[in-house]
């Protein structure tokens, strides 16, 4: 189906990989704190993670991070907004 509705690509928005997100978090809060925060936010249920797509995995982890009361929490909320924006723009294009 073709549509004139702008896509996330039209907005210049892409989803980061998990590796990119971890690297950015390390730059912000340091390697040790980043790894601890990431492990705490990641779902221990690997089966669930394998079934989810990249958007859902990122969203779940960033929203877990966002619940923290430190710079990593602000980083998490920031990324959650970016992922939600990507999802919203993608959904708008599909439904157009």
């Amino acid at each position: 189906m073709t549509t004139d509705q702008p896509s996330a690509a039209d907005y210049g928005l892409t989803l980061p990989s998990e590796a990119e997100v971890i690297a950015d978090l390390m730059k912000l809060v340091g390697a040790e704190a980043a790894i601890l925060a990431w492990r705490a936010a990641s779902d221990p249920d690997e089966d669930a993670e394998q079934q989810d797509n990249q958007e859902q995995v990122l969203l779940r982890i960033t929203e877990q991070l966002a619940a923290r009361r430190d710079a990593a929490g602000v980083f998490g909320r920031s990324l959650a907004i970016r992922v939600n924006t990507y999802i919203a723009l993608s959904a708008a294009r599909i439904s157009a």
Partner: protein
Amino acid sequence: MTTPSHGSPPDAQALDDTARLQEIADLRLNDFDIDGSLSEIAAEAAAHFGLPVALVSIVLDRAQYFRGSHGLDGWMATTRGTPAEWSFCQHVVRNREPFVVDDARHHPLMRDSPLVRIEGVRCYAGVPLVTFRGHVIGSFCVQGPDARSFNEYDLAQLQRYAKRVIACIEQGRQG
């Protein structure tokens, strides 16, 4: 009155400054129900300026977060934010001073933003949200779909709204 900026100086504040981000975390913005109060101030400002949109935008490291708003629709009403690099409000935080755009289609910093190219934002005026500890955490702003100019009286009025917003937000830290 601070002169509004039109660009980013070399000593601009980085959005990912750790002390600034910790200040945002310390304010516990999501622990308290301040949506109603902040959105009331936004609605008042939109009516005062005769513009459709007013925002309490907290500028995080990679996104702006609309903690209070009036007039948002479409996907932004759902996401309650946008990537920081698209935003007008990032320039308020980076420069720690008001940022005014009369016609974004011709503004060198904003003309390529999707908010201008695709969403059709044309005019913008925003002032810093400065906490009691002196950190600029975001912007209180108004925006609209048509070009228009803002004068010093307009910016002074925006500053008054911004002070009310900060008083509301700081109650969360003290509570």
